[in-house]
């Protein structure tokens, strides 16, 4: 009888362990999918960042800045005559 109880107890333990394995496995898959999504997201953001760097660099090229300053904003380099020396 005693031996039978031990067998029963161990069987129960094995059963629990099996269930636990299934749960862990599932959790690991779920986490992995999340990791994949985050990595994908990170990559997308990095690419977006690169595109923004390019966009910023393109908008701020000096020929363009100079053009806008001169044409649209009517700016000129300060003339030497207009410079005051403060002291």
């Amino acid at each position, binding site marked *: 009888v005693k031996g039978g109880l031990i067998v029963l107890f161990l069987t129960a333990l094995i059963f629990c362990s099996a269930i636990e394995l299934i749960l862990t496995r599932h959790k690991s*898959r779920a986490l992995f999918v999340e990791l994949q999504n985050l990595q994908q997201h990170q*990559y997308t953001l990095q690419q977006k960042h690169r595109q923004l760097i390019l966009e910023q660099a393109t908008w701020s*090229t000096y020929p363009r800045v100079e053009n806008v300053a001169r044409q649209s904003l009517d700016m000129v*380099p300060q003339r*030497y005559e207009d*410079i005051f020396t*403060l002291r």
Partner: protein
Amino acid sequence: MNEGTKVTSLFPARRLLVVMVFLLCASTLGWRVVDLQLNEKDFLQGHGADRYLRINQIQSDRGIVFDRNGEALAISIPSASVWAEPKVLMKNRERWIELADAINMPLGHLEALVTGRLNRNFVYLRRQLTPEQSRRVAELDLSGVSLQEDSRRYYPSAEVTSHVVGFTNVDDQGQEGVELEFDESLSAVPGLRRVIKDRLGRVIEELEELRERKKGEPIHLSIDDRVQYAAYRALKTAVHRHAARAGSMVILDVRTGEILALVNQPSFNPNNRSGLKPENLRNRAVTDLFEPGSTAKPFTIAAALESSHYDKESIVDTAPGLLEIGQHSVTDIENFGNLNLTNILVKSSNVGASKIALSLEPRFLWNVFQSVGLGTSTEVALPGEIIGRLKHYSHWRDIEHATQSFGYGLSLNVIQLARAYAVIANGGWLQKLSIKKLETPGHRERVLKRETTEELLGMLTRVVDSGTGKKGQVRGYSVAGKTGTVHKNTTSGYASNRYLSLFAGIIPATDPELVAVVVVDEPRKGEYFGGRVAAPVFASAMSDAVRLLDIRPDRPFEDSYTKVVAIDESWIGTPSGAYP
């Protein structure tokens, strides 16, 4: 019981047969099991794995090239290439017109491309699509046409920095400039991983990393994009105005040896290289040699001062403006008579320079030229540097001994000349040049005495204040500089009507921060003197550069236009319009 025994023994042969058949079946099956398990295991497992195992590519982009202030000069953006399976694509010919339109290609071209390669399974239709094009191709959803991810390199400052930055080919390999020189650290290698995918193609498990991903390292150049543009604009204007064949300009930071600007004309747009002339690719400041002419004279004077046979007040008699050496003669444009060392530079006297050179040991003169780096490699990290030549003094004939002194008979490139002027500017140090932004200045070695360079700076300031270099003046600043006008050396000797116009300058002369060298190759609109063609380029580019780099004017009060005003407390915080 008896009956039963009788029955079983009734048909022994039949029974044996049945047993044998069963045994045969069983052993056939058994043998097949063994066969599958032992002999065909690898094959079968491999095929099984093919149903779910995949190799995934982990994207990685080529490093960004930045200027010293963090402006991007070259950057890779994801893009796509479109490819086709010609046989499949033949089936829906009626939609080719849409496809041609989407990828911006003439229909005839597309037809030729596809029908001409019917026996292949893979044809690139167009590589490196714009994001808009790839979106349209994806929307077409045409069978036989697929998109393949790759990346495309963009150069926002286009032809302003093209010779320095260079470019890559469609396979992302550096071809020119920094892209080539630093290809290894810039280049990226996509990672490879073995993964398990489910029925829908989603990755459900990663098994192993087959190849580690290598990220492209970013690189920060010493170039200042703003100064670069100032130099580019000034040079381009001059090359255009004088209908010159070509031109180069380089600007150095005197203290660190960093190259702040390096421009050449003609240039090219790295974003669109169709119809590009190969000669426009040349980074002339590095790959082309020239004779420095009069811009070498300051180094002859440096040798004179270092020799201690001369000082600032030494007088050299240049009359009658002609010096006969054997069968050759050295001439000045007029008879300058007695000149001190300063005036030899101010008037740019060939006879004066020659007489000084001939009074010095050839070895001594050679040593000074050699030590300031004329005709020796700068070892700057740009592809294709041509070293040039300073002939060894033991091979000098008398006439060569003389002509070296005013810059004929030796050859060098623009950055070498700039480095040599930096020696005068920084107190006598030969500073290693750098195209990368530096945290600490590179190696340097002392080659001239501090007193020598100080005296030279004073003399060269006179050249710009009252000599041949007047057009190199920058308002508010003292400039030290030297002009040069060189007859071009062609295969048939020196050409009488083809010139190089040169100017090398240092600003501010009292506390040098920048050195620049300008070369204009074959100005063809009449003017060709270095002081009239090259010096204005220096003045134009440097007046922008000193403002952009916040370099303090060292001559603010010597000009009548500058008003000296006392600060009135009440101005502080008022709009600029309220100033008197």
